[in-house]
């Protein structure tokens, strides 16, 4: 028998108990014509063999840690406290299901309640949900919530400076939802050009800040331009919320996005965790799970899943979202990291990332005209765009020298200015920055 399954003795005793001579008798309801022969797979392997194979595959990746990395564009390398993985490795957390039975799930429930609180504090919004899959689907859910709140509208004004994956995902969903996406270009400061926004009868205006080229949007202007339509802020680099005034401070209706930056490993793009925060007036139109505080039979504080009449398992075809399993464990990871950083650390980390990015940006500016800052005078947090033709070739040469110099924008989307998107975090040392400057000066 297999090590993950009960032994032959158990199988025999169950068959005896059932009065059956073989498992095949129990499988009889499956018609013979649907049966298959042996699966086209090898025999089950020893743990050591599986380890050898997967280690070999893992070893044929070069990790971002083995090189000097300035990659960002939606996935950021910040410090990861050892405590986080220790918490996520608690079987009580990672081998539990969605907390349907609150009496034996207070751990998960309270942690999510804390996550919701952290999200509210970071975004300046009233309410936040228990997590979504990722930043892209969070933006989609925000637009869909807006369309429920503005049922007559069909137009959604969306900045082309959203992370291209967010925009692409929104396009996919919008088509099915029969929403019309009006994509907004950018102006010469690298901010979304709001001049085409016509808010009357529109569903929402969606911007990302900092946007995909790293520029911090003028959220006050976005809010004004949105008028009656909902104003939605997407955030791809969540640590920026430690330094930048969030949508909540400008009267936005939704602030949503991706929390990966708070210590989740890149993991080749997932699992990360989407967050979603909005105004309390919109509570009953919110997507996803919510944990609420209540009291138990003895009057003690207790936490439960709540307002689930919005959800698919109750409302089915009329649910506010189809999401069921979300990204709870990653939300827990972020909650741990935010708890550790706390009041001082959330700001200090953002400030350090910003300061280092300022340093590198300034030094790279001096390399002009070999490379040029796309938007030299615009406010940026920890990411910025260098203009440069054929960036892939230059990056390939840097990579040979052990530097992942940034993301080539053609890799992200054909419509972006051609160049290199450079991200800097508190983990990048000054010396790493200097190495990049030196190498670019030499190779560009």
């Amino acid at each position, binding site marked *: 028998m*297999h090590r993950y*399954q009960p032994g032959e003795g158990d199988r025999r005793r169950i068959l005896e108990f059932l009065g059956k001579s073989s*498992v095949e008798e129990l499988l009889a309801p499956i018609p013979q014509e649907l049966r298959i022969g042996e699966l086209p*797979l090898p025999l089950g392997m020893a743990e050591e063999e599986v380890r050898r194979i997967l280690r070999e595959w893992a070893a044929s990746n070069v990790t971002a840690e083995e090189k000097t990395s300035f990659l960002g564009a939606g996935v950021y390398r910040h410090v990861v406290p050892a405590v986080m993985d220790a918490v996520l490795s608690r079987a009580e957390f*990672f081998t539990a299901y969605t907390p349907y039975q609150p009496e034996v799930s207070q751990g998960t429930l309270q942690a999510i309640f*804390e996550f919701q609180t952290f999200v509210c504090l970071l975004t300046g919004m009233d309410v936040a949900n228990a997590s979504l899959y990722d930043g892209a689907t969070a933006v989609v859910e925000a637009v869909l919530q807006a369309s429920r709140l503005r049922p007559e509208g069909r137009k959604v004004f969306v900045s082309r400076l959203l992370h291209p994956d967010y925009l692409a995902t929104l396009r996919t969903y919008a088509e099915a939802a029969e929403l019309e996406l009006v994509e907004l270009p950018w102006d010469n400061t690298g901010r979304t050009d709001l001049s085409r926004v016509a808010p009357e009868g529109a569903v929402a205006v969606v911007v990302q800040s900092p946007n995909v080229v790293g520029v911090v949007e003028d959220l006050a202007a976005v809010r004004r331009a949105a008028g009656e339509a909902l104003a939605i802020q997407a955030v791809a680099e969540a640590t920026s919320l430690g330094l930048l005034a969030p949508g909540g401070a400008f009267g936005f209706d939704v602030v949503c996005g991706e929390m990966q930056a708070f210590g989740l490993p890149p993991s080749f793009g997932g699992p990360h965790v989407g967050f979603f925060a909005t105004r309390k007036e919109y509570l009953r139109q919110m997507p996803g799970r919510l944990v*609420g505080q209540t009291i138990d039979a003895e009057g*003690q504080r207790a936490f439960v899943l709540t307002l689930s009449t919005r959800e698919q398992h109750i409302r089915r075809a009329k649910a506010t979202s189809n999401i069921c399993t979300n990204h709870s464990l990653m939300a827990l990871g972020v909650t741990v990291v935010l708890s550790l950083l*706390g009041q001082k650390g959330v700001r200090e980390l953002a400030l350090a990332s910003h300061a280092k990015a300022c340093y590198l940006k300034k030094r790279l500016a001096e390399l002009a005209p070999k490379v040029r800052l796309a938007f030299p005078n615009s406010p940026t947090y920890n990411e910025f765009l260098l203009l440069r033709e054929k960036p892939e070739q230059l990056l390939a040469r840097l990579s040979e020298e052990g530097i992942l110099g940034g993301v080539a924008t053609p890799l992200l989307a054909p419509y972006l200015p051609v160049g290199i998107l450079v991200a800097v975090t508190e983990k990048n040392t000054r010396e790493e920055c200097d190495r990049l400057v030196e190498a670019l000066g030499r190779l560009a």
Partner: protein
Amino acid sequence: MNGNKLREREPLIFERSTPGAVGYQLPALDVEPVDPERTLGADLVRGEIRELPEVSEVDVVRHFHRLSRWNYAVDDGLYPLGSCTMKYNPRLNEELARLPGFSQVHPLQPAEDVQGALRLMWELEQALVGITGMARVTLQPAAGAHGELTGMLMIRKALKDRGEHRSTVLIPDSAHGTNPASAVFAGFKVKELASTPAGTLDLQALEQELAGGDVAALMITVPNTLGVFEPEIARAAAMLHEKGAFLYMDGANLNAFVGVASPGKMGADALHINLHKTFSTPHGGGGPGAGPVAVSELLEPYLPVPVVEKRDGRFFLDSDRPKTIGKVRSFYGNFGIMVRAMAYILSLGRNGLKGMAEAAVLAANFLRRALEEDYHLAYESPTLHEVVFDDSLQKRFGVTNMDIAKRLLDYGFHAPTVSFPLIVHGALMIEPTDSEGLAELEAFAAAMKAIAREARENPEIVKTAPHTTPVRRPDEVRAARQPILRWMPDGGQGS
């Protein structure tokens, strides 16, 4: 005797805050500090967020340690949530997913840096193709529901390409709630199909609906949510195809027949697979999971981009697929979950995978037989991997399925699924999975039998259960009526 009440509560992390405590230290700043009001402008920046906690690392570790201890988890024992497939999560898979070569890879590194990651995705796709008998698989969806949506969007696009505007999706009344919700978000209308008295698909009703010509697809779970195999699934597929409609299969219950039969043979056009069910990746208290979608050749052109391709022994991401539905999320999917599933498939192999289905079916049938005198069986149809009882025998004593569920917690087990499937009133939906040995099954059966006895002899103890948990019957109505969804600094009530 209540001495330990003193410690049973763990405050919120925010309530643990004490001035000046810190739980971190950042690397020393080795560049000039900047004044963000100057670099960014005063209206773009904010100050310290005062409500964030000030806690030491010790506080944080203790906090989450204590919280964890209030959870029931698979490692504690049988977790009979029907439809959820709460099986053992192998520790090897956790070890491997944490290899830096997997976890520390950025999705936008050059292809030559990530050959191992791409290979893993490619091999996993091959394995799932082999298991399902379908043409190709997208690994992009983040969960089952996300897979449903992805599959239905492909169907929508395929119909559109054919120039057809079908808008109805048929879904049996036993289906999981995500099915209708996903169909709607994919732009369809949902028509519910009543199940037959055997709990299975009503072919006649299907025929009738198909006659209308507006049917885009049938979404159906196999075996269905009663744990009953759909005997006419191949017929249904043929009928759908004949009428130009598609068969979407909810693969949440794939664990019942892996290695025995295949969705491909059943005629599925698309199905999602919950890696976090059949393939043992941990549920994490509600995700992350992964919901790959396997499709027939017909739907293959519509797969989300990018897909992983192999040429001359090298792997690469291909987005150049004109008919694609586009993307359904960032990057390529929940890669960390894929690593775990791949390790599981290699560990089990063809023998272990089939053994998994057999063990799951054996365990469910054991519980059915062991409990059928004490609990009323909702449907008599043969059981595969899960069995659904109802509370009609206990209702006489005023005991509901919810009471039985709560009482099980006192016996040291998690509860079965109780509010699903909707076609069973007072459902107790029990899925033991392939992980459970006879001793654990017997212990669970003994607890269920003891509760049945209590329901007869001492119903009050069941109706007021649980009695031994850290909290007891939290007031859900109050939670919904006066929502408190966040901590507020002033001890106030976040809405």
